[in-house]
Structures are given as structure tokens and as C-alpha cells.
């Protein structure tokens, strides 16, 4: 049914995303400020400076996820892809429940970035830690207002921001290692003094370092060439491996336990590399990552909520538009919810719970993607697949098992100790989604169907030969 965006017979789009912007979008969405906390959290699970091995192992798993999303995106190259492939792979109620649960990841990431940037600003200006909560509200307030005014970061600015973040982070991490004048400790033996279970935890957090690279698939309709999406994601995974391996190695090499468990380990990394100037540089880089997160996160989530409301799967109020054609209810709702989560995290100092919850949710969605690839290979064997994953049946089963296990592992461990809070958070989000889908949505759909049935058909009857189905068709379910 669907076809590649650029496969239409018409002329080339006037404004289309090239490969460079596709790579920067994919990398930028993954490389949020939360990346630094996840990297700092990861090093606790492995010996010395061997975190790069866990990051590399996670990178191989991310490549598997890349295969799943590459194949699914090729089949459904649209911003609504997640709805399309999940609806075809499973019961629609299950698909909607998983989708809504997954959307909570965006709230977590926006909240996390607001918290991290707020904490970094408060620290840089020597303010009390509680003032981070004020900065969080200010930052999210600015993000909401700019979104409501329809302001979005241009592709070229996004490219510049993302590549600046990557280069600056890599340079600072590399300089921190080189200027420490110490030899690397256990760079090849991650299990030294640790268990295999610790390494699995490290890999689960490592997967989170790559997470959200697949969100670029929602741009499938605007790329210059369809293959840019899967190529862009592949390059992004490579870039993320290089930078994250370096950052984790540098953090384990130069930071103390106290610095690693702080809300802004990246600032200490900057200080280790270039003193006070390095600290300010990392503060600026952290703020830049938030630019991408706030821009991409708000737009992706609010537009998806709008489309889902228009489809009839969420209350109609969520599709209300302001005069700049921005769905203002989802934008304000996302801002308020993210601010609430960020302030709770700031007050309770529970940012590692946020990291573990995000890691659990992302591993879960990768397992779901594996399931969808397997099911659609059976249900839609003849569907055109511009990108066909090699060894899909074997890797699909492997992905389902491995990501499922990682989801569970990440959900019950915080800072190298058993803690079921992330699992509880995910279960609550899933439970609320299921309650909405099973108990609330039927009522909303029934009311919407009744409303549509009361609207007379506007299209005049066609004077055509008998038997023409277009002459007197009943009102469709899709009526406005």
C-alpha cells in the first residue's frame, strides 16, 4: 500500500533531507544530555577502562535493531510507520498499548535533558542545587513557547549543533585521557572483579546510549532518497559507538566515584581535560544537546499525538490547533508532564532511575520491532521490502530474546544494585496505557462514530450508470 517517499512519479521535492541531515537527525536524537549520565552509570558495571567493550557489544545489538527498523521503515516509509507495522503485526489494542507506553520514553528524555541542563547551569553559576528546579521550569517553558509559536530548528542548524556536540565531546574525552598521564586500567578485561551479570547490565545501559537513533524513521517522507534513512541510521550507530566508547573510557579513567554519580559528570570530564574552560565548554555542549532533544522530542511527540487524535484513537481535544497550526494541547501537556518528572527527579536525586527506565523501555521497543519483523515476514511475505534484513528469521528470534532479557535486566537494576523502581514505572505506564485502550477508548470511538453518523454526506450524489459503487455510497467511518 505504502511506497517510498521519493518513489512518486512527480518532480523531486523542493525541500528534502539529504544524507548529512538524516545522519545528524538520527545521531542528535540519540545523543541527548542523558547520554552522559548513562555513560557514567555504565562504567560502574565493568572493570577499569573496559567500558568500550560493553559499548561495542551494545553497538552490535544496535546494528541488529538497525536491521529491524531498516526493514520496517522500507515497508512503511511514513511518520505513522509505528502504527502501521504494529497494527499489521498484532492486535490493534496491543499495538496501541505498546505505542502509548513507548511514547512515555519521549517524556522521560525531555525531562532528563531539562534536569541535566538545569543542574549543569545551577552548578556553573554556583547556585544551590534546588535552583536546578527553577532552571528546569524556565527551560521547558522556553521550549513550550517556541513550539507554540511554530519555531523549529532548521536542518542546517541542527547539523551544526549535532556535529559540534560530537566533535567537542570526543575531543574533550580524548584530551582528558591523554592529559591524565596514566596508563589505561584493565582496558580489555571487563569482568575483572565483576560478574557476567554486571556485564549484561552494562550492555543494557550501552543499548540505551544508541537508543532513539531509529526515531529518524519518522522523517521517511522528507528524505531525498529512501535509502538515506537506513544508511543514515547505520552511520549514526557508527558515530555513536566512536564517541560513546571514548566518553565511557575517559569517564572511568579520570573521574572519581563521587563525580561519576553526580548529575553532571560531563562537566568534571571537561575540567579534567581543559580546566575551567573545559567545564564551560561541556556546559555549552550539554545545552546544545538539549536544543536537539527539545526540538525533535516536542515535534515528534506532539505531531504523533495530534495524528492519533485525528485518527480517533485519542480524545479530539488533543487535535486542537492554534493559529500557527500547532497542536497546542499536546505541546503544553508534554511540557507540564516533563517538568513534573524533571522536578521530581531533581528533588529526589533519582536520575539513575530515569536512565534505567529509559533503557528498559528502549530494549522493550527493540524486542517489539524484532517481533514485528518476524510476524510481517509471515503475514506479508510478498510485500515489497526495499531493505531486506539479512537472516531476519534467525536474528528476529535472537533480537526478541536478547532485547527482552535486556529490558528486564535494565528495569530491575539502578547503579549496580537491585532496584525494581524502573520496572514499576514501566508497569504503571503500560498499565495506564492498557486501561485507556481497553476501557476508555471504546467509549471515545463510539461517541466519534455517533457524531460522524449525524453529519450528512456533503458530496452530491453522482448521476452515473446503475451499479457504480461511487454513486450512492454510505457515509464512511473516516468522515470528518
Amino acid at each position, binding site marked *: 500500500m505504502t*511506497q517510498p517517499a521519493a518513489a*512518486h512519479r512527480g518532480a523531486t521535492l523542493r525541500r528534502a533531507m539529504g544524507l548529512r541531515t538524516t545522519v545528524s537527525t538520527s545521531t542528535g536524537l540519540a545523543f541527548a544530555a542523558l547520554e552522559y549520565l548513562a555513560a557514567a552509570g555504565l562504567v560502574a558495571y565493568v572493570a577499569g577502562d573496559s567500558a568500550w567493550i560493553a559499548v561495542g557489544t551494545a553497538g552490535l545489538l544496535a546494528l541488529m535493531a538497525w536491521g529491524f527498523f531498516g526493514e520496517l521503515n522500507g515497508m512503511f516509509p511514513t511518520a505513522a510507520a509505528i502504527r502501521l507495522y504494529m497494527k499489521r503485526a498484532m492486535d490493534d489494542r496491543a499495538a496501541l498499548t505498546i505505542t502509548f507506553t513507548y511514547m512515555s520514553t519521549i517524556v522521560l528524555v525531555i525531562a532528563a535533558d531539562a534536569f541535566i541542563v538545569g543542574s549543569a547551569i545551577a552548578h556553573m553559576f554556583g547556585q544551590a542545587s534546588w535552583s536546578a528546579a527553577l532552571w528546569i521550569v524556565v527551560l521547558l517553558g522556553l521550549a513550550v513557547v517556541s513550539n507554540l509559536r511554530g519555531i523549529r530548528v532548521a536542518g542546517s542548524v541542527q547539523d551544526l549543533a549535532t556535529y559540534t556536540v560530537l566533535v567537542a565531546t570526543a575531543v574533550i574525552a580524548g584530551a582528558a585521557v591523554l592529559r591524565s598521564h596514566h596508563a589505561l586500567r584493565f582496558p580489555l578485561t571487563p569482568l575483572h572483579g565483576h560478574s557476567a551479570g554486571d556485564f549484561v547490565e552494562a550492555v543494557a545501559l550501552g543499548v540505551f546510549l544508541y537508543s532513539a537513533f531509529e526515531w529518524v524513521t519518522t522523517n521517511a517522507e522528507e528524505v531525498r532518497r529512501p535509502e538515506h534513512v537506513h544508511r543514515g541510521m547505520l552511520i549514526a550507530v557508527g558515530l555513536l559507538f566512536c564517541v560513546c566508547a571514548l566518553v565511557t573510557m575517559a569517564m572511568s579513567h579520570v573521574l572519581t566515584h563521587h563525580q561519576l554519580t553526580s548529575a553532571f559528570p560531563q562537566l568534571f570530564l571537561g575540567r579534567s581535560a581543559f580546566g575551567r574552560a573545559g567545564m564551560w565548554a561541556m556546559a555549552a555542549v550539554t545545552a546544545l544537546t538539549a536544543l536537539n532533544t527539545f526540538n525533535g522530542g516536542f515535534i515528534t511527540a506532539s505531531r504523533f499525538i495530534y495524528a492519533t487524535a485525528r485518527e480517533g484513537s485519542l480524545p479530539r481535544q488533543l487535535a486542537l*490547533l492554534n493559529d500557527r497550526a500547532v497542536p497546542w494541547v499536546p505541546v503544553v501537556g508534554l511540557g507540564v508532564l516533563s517538568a513534573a518528572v524533571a522536578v521530581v527527579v531533581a528533588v529526589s536525586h533519582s536520575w539513575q532511575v530515569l536512565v534505567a527506565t529509559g533503557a528498559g523501555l528502549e530494549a522493550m521497543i527493540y524486542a517489539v520491532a524484532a517481533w514485528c519483523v518476524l510476524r510481517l515476514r509471515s503475514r506479508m511475505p510478498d510485500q515489497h521490502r526495499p531493505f531486506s534484513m539479512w537472516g531476519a528469521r534467525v536474528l528476529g528470534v535472537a533480537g526478541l530474546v536478547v532485547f527482552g532479557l535486556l529490558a528486564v535486566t535494565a528495569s530491575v537494576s539502578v547503579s549496580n544494585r537491585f532496584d525494581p523502581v524502573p520496572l514499576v514505572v514501566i508497569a504503571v505506564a503500560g498499565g495506564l496505557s492498557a486501561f485507556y485502550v481497553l476501557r476508555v477508548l471504546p467509549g471515545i470511538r463510539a461517541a466519534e462514530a455517533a457524531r460522524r453518523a449525524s453529519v450528512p454526506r456533503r458530496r452530491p450524489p453522482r448521476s452515473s450508470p446503475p451499479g457504480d459503487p461511487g454513486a450512492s455510497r454510505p457515509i464512511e467511518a473516516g468522515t470528518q
Partner: protein
Amino acid sequence: MASAEEIVEAYAAWRDRCNANERLRRMLRGWDRVVHLEATDTGDRFTVTVHEQTVGELAADAVGAPDLVVTATSEDFADLFWGDLNPSEKYMSGEIVLAGSQEDVMRLDALSMVAFLDQ
């Protein structure tokens, strides 16, 4: 299948409705775009131009470089312009295929929604 004439007639009614809606015209501020429509079943192609907050006449065939390309059946185009079809629903089910930026896709759907529901 809807004929090209039926689509032109439906579009004319839709365009009048859009251009008469003050709120919609405000929403179109700064959104000058060229939209190509492609009917999968008849092969008919059309061009819609939005310029200075006004929805222009429907041109036959694909004219100029588009910002957005909408691919659907001729029946869906006719129903859409009469307001008898929810384009978002068709889009989310994969029956209407789009090429263009997410923002432009949103605006196009907003045109349809505000014109008929005034939300």
C-alpha cells in the same frame, strides 16, 4: 473511480470554504507551498498552490517543484475535498501516502480539519 471533473468540482467547493475561513487564512500565514496530487487509480495529476494565505485554483498535471506530494485514489480525493473523509485516518492506515516535511503534512491536514470542523 472519480473523474477528473468530479475532483475539480470538489476542490472548487473546498477552496471556497478554505478561503472564506478567516482563522484558516491566519493559519496559512507564511505557508506558501506547492502541492502535487496523484490519483493512483486514474493516473490523474493536479497541482494546488497556496500563496499569500490563499488557496489557489487547481491546475491540471504536476506543475513546478512540489513541497508536498499526496498520493491517493481518485475517490479519496473527491471525498476529502467534500469533507466526507478524514485524511488523517486514511494516512494512519497507509491508504493516503505523502512525501514532504512533517510540518507541511500537518498544515495540509489542518486545512482539511479547520475547513470542516473549525477546530
